[in-house]
């Protein structure tokens, strides 16, 4: 078996993957989720026996 060839191809594959992924900017997504998210929610407890 040609181990050098296998490891070289693996390394080249990893390099390609690394370049393709890049740095995703998620800060905007996080801020959007916070803004669109309901900050409060009122819960109705009418009819719940034993709740005072």
């Amino acid at each position: 078996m040609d181990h050098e060839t296998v490891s070289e191809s693996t390394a080249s594959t990893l390099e390609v993957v690394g370049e393709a992924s890049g740095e995703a900017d998620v800060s905007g997504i996080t801020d959007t989720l916070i803004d669109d998210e309901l900050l409060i929610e009122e819960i109705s407890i009418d009819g719940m026996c034993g709740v005072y």
Partner: protein
Amino acid sequence: MACAGSTEPMLDVALELHPQVALRPEPFGALAYHYGNRRLVFMKHPDVVAVARQLADHPSLSATLQACAIAPERWPSFAKAFESLKSSEIVRER
């Protein structure tokens, strides 16, 4: 910052937590229970809880948001949230 205050009148209101309201800390934020009207409200973000607790220490909601380091782009969401809390009597004007 002046722009946020002009579009959301709630930001200029002096508020305080209603004295009959208890806040119970939860992992997601807190539960607010009003012993007078028996309303239960989930505060689904810790920032909302922090702001609610400090309302009485500042002259307006916007001042409280600023003191709690809430980003200005989030102020409209907080204004709507506290408007709803005011409707539920969880917070009140002072």
